[in-house]
């Protein structure tokens, strides 16, 4: 059995909120890789946080103790050591495991809404705000016929009252 390990907020909440069918263990995934330089180390850490472990469902390969996550860490390490760039490693993984493996989704006809949705909402919201304010301004300056009549009546009454 491939062991599934899980040690982030998610697992705590999940354990709390539902029955968890996988065996969960709280062991840290710690390796002792050595790198040629700091840049390589940085790239490696960025990649292991960006790549998702396909077996354990919602953990990156840095945090997972699953067998597959270890394999992918080792592979990532090899590729980084060979001098491959971040994009190349991501492409390598995507070619094998699909887009599921990267936490940063590519732009597709559907994912475009991830960026468009909030943007459109902000534009829509600001438009409504401007329209509202414009409407109020026009209201304060122009009274409709009925209101004009009312105003005239009030004024006349006022004049009468003060004169009597």
């Amino acid at each position, binding site marked *: 059995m491939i062991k599934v390990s899980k040690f982030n907020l998610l697992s705590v909440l999940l354990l709390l909120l539902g029955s968890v069918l996988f065996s969960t*263990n709280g062991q840290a995934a*710690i390796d*002792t890789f050595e790198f040629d330089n700091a840049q390589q180390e940085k790239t490696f850490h960025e990649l292991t946080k960006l790549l998702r472990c396909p077996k354990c469902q919602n953990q990156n390969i840095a945090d997972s103790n699953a067998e597959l996550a270890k394999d992918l860490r080792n592979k990532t390490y090899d590729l980084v050591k060979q001098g491959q760039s971040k994009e190349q490693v991501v492409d390598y993984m995507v070619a094998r495991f699909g887009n599921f493996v990267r936490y*940063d989704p590519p732009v597709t006809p559907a994912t475009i809404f991830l960026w468009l949705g909030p943007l459109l909402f902000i534009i829509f919201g600001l438009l409504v705000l401007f329209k509202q304010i414009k409407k109020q301004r026009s209201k*304060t300056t122009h009274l409709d016929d009925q209101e004009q009549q009312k105003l005239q009546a009030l004024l006349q009454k006022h004049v009468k009252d003060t004169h009597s």
Partner: protein
Amino acid sequence: MLPEIGQFTLILACLLALLQTIYPLYGVYTGHQGAIRSAKMFTILQFVAVAFSFVILSYSFLINDFSVDYIATNSNSALPWYYRLSAVWGAHEGSLLLWVFLLASWSIAVALMSKRLPIESVARVLAVLGLLAFGFYLFVLLTSNPFDRTLPYFPIDGRDLNPLLQDFGLIIHPPMLYMGYVGFSVAFAFAIAALLEGRLDSAWAKWSRPWTMAAWMFLTVGIALGSWWAYYELGWGGWWFWDPVENASFMPWLAGTALIHSLAVSEKRGVFKSWTVLLALSAFSLSLLGTFLVRSGVLVSVHAFASDPTRGLFILGFLVLVIGGSLLLYAVQAAKVKSRGRYELASRESVLLINNILLIAALIVVLLGTLLPLVHKEIGLGSISIGEPFFNRMFTILIVPFALFVGVGSLFRWKRQQLNDLKKPLAMILIISTLVTVLFLLVFAPFLTWLAVMGTFLGFWIIVGVVYEIYLRSTHRHSFSKGITKLGNSHWAMSFGHLGLAVMIIGITMTQNYSIEKDVKLAVGEQISFEHYEFHFDQVKGLKAQNYTATVGVFTVKKDGDFVAVMQAEKRLYTVQRMPMTEAAIDEGFTRDLYIAMGEVLPDGAWAVRIYYKPFIRWIWLGPLLMAFGGLLMICDRRYRSKKEPAGVLGDEHA
């Protein structure tokens, strides 16, 4: 016998909740006074019944009654008594019981503390709460009964509570979080009652405000506790992962934050009313959506997909009725609402609305990011993942305008603000916050990244803005020392809320940019040093506790040669479930945490050890605590407890 009684009182509570809905509403529409008054009585009875069930389940846990299936699965006789008690909400069934119990608690609080509201309005609110409770009771009783027995063959001992949950965090985190989730039901009920009445006015906003604030406060603390718990308990060192389950708690929080601000405008100025009521409906709807996402297994997570989708379908059906119904009611009734207030573009109303827009944009980011993978797969585009890199980027963008507005928003006057009058304060805030940022980074930043500069600047921009605003308000009519005592609770509430955000932004910025994470190979006697710190691996020793055994790595930490701490990181093996657990050693500090977790022992006898240096990580949780404190101040404002309110306020003003 006891569990059967618990089950019986739960059924009783379910029936009482139904009565609590039907009879008072009948009273409201026929003018039958006795029926209207019955709402309070049914609410109290319902609370007593469900409290009884809850106590019985807790007691059964305490006395290790393993004939109850739920207890046999989630407890063990070797478990300390306090974990046996908190194991009540350690899994699905019991946590739902906690949920309905808290819902009944909020309801009874509304029933007892709303003496100043018109009795028909209270009856409507309680009826709505009763309907919600009824739905959840049915869910518990039909799909997730915690009192099911394992008779006739019950186990001698239980399978134990998951070791991850055997922690102080389990005792307080879920009740806090649920208080928040469930608390939004009160704001929801107030909104529905107001819509039913066709009266949305400032009075409605005034009555909802303290309740909403209370729920928001619990949710804020609940989420922060969860984050902190994950950080120290899971040997992972992270504090947020943007997982669907975390997002499920974050979405109602964002809606709730927008709501407490929008309510303030609706109460004080009588505008944005239909927007506010929509937020009130959304906050609780998102709590319900979260429940669905977490318990149905439609999303990819460590959760295996429930082979029996009944639970998911039940909640979804309930969701469609409750949310769909309320949104339909909203469309019809809110159309009648007219806004009367006037405000200019440069006004506090506008600034608050812009911040509301940004908060909801953030909510849309989280909502789409959580649900889009589902849609993506369903429409045949394949599986995708949306995680940390995406969310972090979007939030980094959104926080900039948001923080800039928060920092100076409270300087804006209601209705109209002469922008010329703001020039001087803005210049002051800009100059001071820039200076403070530079000083801060000089002291605490080992190097500069533009994200770090921006993040800390935004944090100090808010802090300076808040302090400057307090100064201006205090010196408006009095001397500073006298004026500062004249500021109302609500004003302090706002200031603390905003300070909390600033503290959190600084914490996140520093942790994200300047953390050092080292996975190293260390043998006993060796040491490693970075950031002025030396970690010396002294020894490895064994440890035996009540329900686990552990290997303990002992480290002495020095900073520039001076002793700092002895840290003991454990690798535990829980005896019942044979489950290994990493128990990290943490040396907490106001400006930095040191964090050590033990990995595997390597073939040559050395250990894989993880050492973290996490600057300002405490601030990430200190921030929410400050926010919650602000919320507490607002609830205590005299305005919400004065008895001189004329009767029938809720219905007085026609919108």
